[in-house]
């Protein structure tokens, strides 16, 4: 019986998904954003094939130093004679990796805290978690991030953790509100009456209903995480051994690219960040309009 019920639910969800996809396709901005993202994701995935480690190692770089763009170096070279294009391609991998994992981390923490808090609404558990969420909303994120990463050191893993820890509170509040409303619905009461455990109700009823709101938020969160990594990198708080777009900006800044006029070193990484962040934002807004019932009604 459960498998039958599961199958019905699966078919229903697949149909809903097909409907959402059709709506998403009608959003021009969302589709443009998605297309750009797919290109960047492809570059990130294939970057080890496109760029060899010898091109990234400062000691084995063969190009001229600070060279302007030319046929052999389409985006010029940096202060070690490395091709900026090669750095950009590897940077796509690191920046997207940090963006995705940090956003996932923030969303998972936010989802757990928000669901538990909302499900046990108005108990001491809820009060404690809610207070914690509000505190993390208030603390200026960069100050906390600086404190954390100066203490624990700036490995790529720590950067991801720091971004996740400083940005889970927003999603948590969103999920809590949704969980509070789902909890009151008749089918949850029915499941409770039939003897469903808290675990069963949370995973089978509350989470699936929270998920749509969370999904759009995740996409927006990736954009925010990439920007956060850039900020940390510019302040010298990102992993010195990993080449992200933010780190390329930092090294060009430290070398004085602005006053020396080495624009080919400074402009591309920033443009890439703007393009990717904007694309994630466009996709996120398009998803939000589909999945967020409040916005859907307004149209």
């Amino acid at each position: 019986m459960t498998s039958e019920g599961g199958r019905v639910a699966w078919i229903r969800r697949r149909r809903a998904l097909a409907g959402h996809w059709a709506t998403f396709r009608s959003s021009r901005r969302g589709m443009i954003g998605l297309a750009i993202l797919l290109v960047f994701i492809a570059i990130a995935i294939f970057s080890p094939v496109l760029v060899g480690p010898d091109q990234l190692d400062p000691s084995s770089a063969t190009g001229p130093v600070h060279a302007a763009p030319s046929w052999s170096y389409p985006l010029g070279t940096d202060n070690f004679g490395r091709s900026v294009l090669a750095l950009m391609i590897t940077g796509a991998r690191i920046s997207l990796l940090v963006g995705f994992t940090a956003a996932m981390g923030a969303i998972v923490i936010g989802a757990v805290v928000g669901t538990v808090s909302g499900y046990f609404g108005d108990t001491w558990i809820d009060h404690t978690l809610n207070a914690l969420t509000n505190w993390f909303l208030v603390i200026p994120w960069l100050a906390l991030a600086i404190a954390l990463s100066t203490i624990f050191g700036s490995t790529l893993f720590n950067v991801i953790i720091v971004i996740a820890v400083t940005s889970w509170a927003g999603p948590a509040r969103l999920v809590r509100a949704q969980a509070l409303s789902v909890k009151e619905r008749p089918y949850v009461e029915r499941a409770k009456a039939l003897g469903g455990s808290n675990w069963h109700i949370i995973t089978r009823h509350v989470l699936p209903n929270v998920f749509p709101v969370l999904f759009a938020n995740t996409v927006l969160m990736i954009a925010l995480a990439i920007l956060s990594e850039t900020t940390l990198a510019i302040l010298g708080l990102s992993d010195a051994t990993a080449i992200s777009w933010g780190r390329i900006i930092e090294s060009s800044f430290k070398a004085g690219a602005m006053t020396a006029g080495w624009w080919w070193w400074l402009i591309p990484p920033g443009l890439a960040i703007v393009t990717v962040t904007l694309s994630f934002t466009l996709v996120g807004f398009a998803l939000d309009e589909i999945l967020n019932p409040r916005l859907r009604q307004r149209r």
Partner: protein
Amino acid sequence: MGARRYVVKKVTHALATVLFILSFNFLLFRIMPGDPVGILVRSDRLTPAQVDELRTDLGLNLPLPRQYLHYVGQTVTGSLGESLRNSRPVSTMIFERLGPTALLVGLGTIFASLFGVLIGIKGGWNRGSRFDTSSQLGSLVLYAVPEGWLGMLLLLFFSGVLGWFPAGGFETGGLTGMSRVVDVLDHLFLPLLTLTLGYVGQYSIVMRSSMIDTTHEEYVMSARAKGVPERMVRRNHVVPNAFLPTFTLIFLSFGFVLGGAVVIETIFSWPGLGLLTYDSIGSLDYPVIQGVFLLGSLAVIVANLFADMTYGYLDPRIRET
């Protein structure tokens, strides 16, 4: 709930938050790998005698609860320890840097919110117009731009290529009176422009969507139904109500603007708290980082409290619930 209870509740909450920040700050620098003195010694600037002195200073020989009380007592009386770089009191160092940051962040917030709100009003009222679509896209692009990079770009173009503005700093020095004011403004222009551009986008997005929400309210419909001219509907019914969420956002995002200021001050060598933070990161000057963290958090808590208070005053509905 009466106005008085509302105020008491909000102030209590703010005080609880301050206590949390203090405890967090206390714990953060004690759960770090090794003890604080260990970390301080790792930065290789202290003699063994200084280490002992530091231990007593920080109260590290006391049991943990006593340490906590010691720390809170020290902090509340304004003693934030000494910098590891030059042994100066952290509170003095912070105090010296307050002015430039207040100037930059204050003016930046005013300009960004002013332009953001105006753009949002115009776009949200004429939803779908050419102004709306282009300003919305512009806002989204600005929202996606890392402030630090934007600052470098402006520096590259206006200072490096055109030479219209100085490449950084607060003033040229040696000037007095009016010419000094002009000189400081000259130095302020690019950082201020960066901060304004960096934050105008989010204000205009929120104001626009709030305008659209409010246009669908029933009181707007009834105002129109009784024949109030469109201009008056906008000015008297839509804008004041639509402004409320944006107003809160301006204060709530204060923490983010402060964060942006850290990066922008670094780029333009603007001698405020941000540059102090950056220099302290480079030399692992923990007491200063701790002090700036505390002050930044306090500023945000006060900004939030102020938003709550004025919001309750502006919108009586909030006080009722």
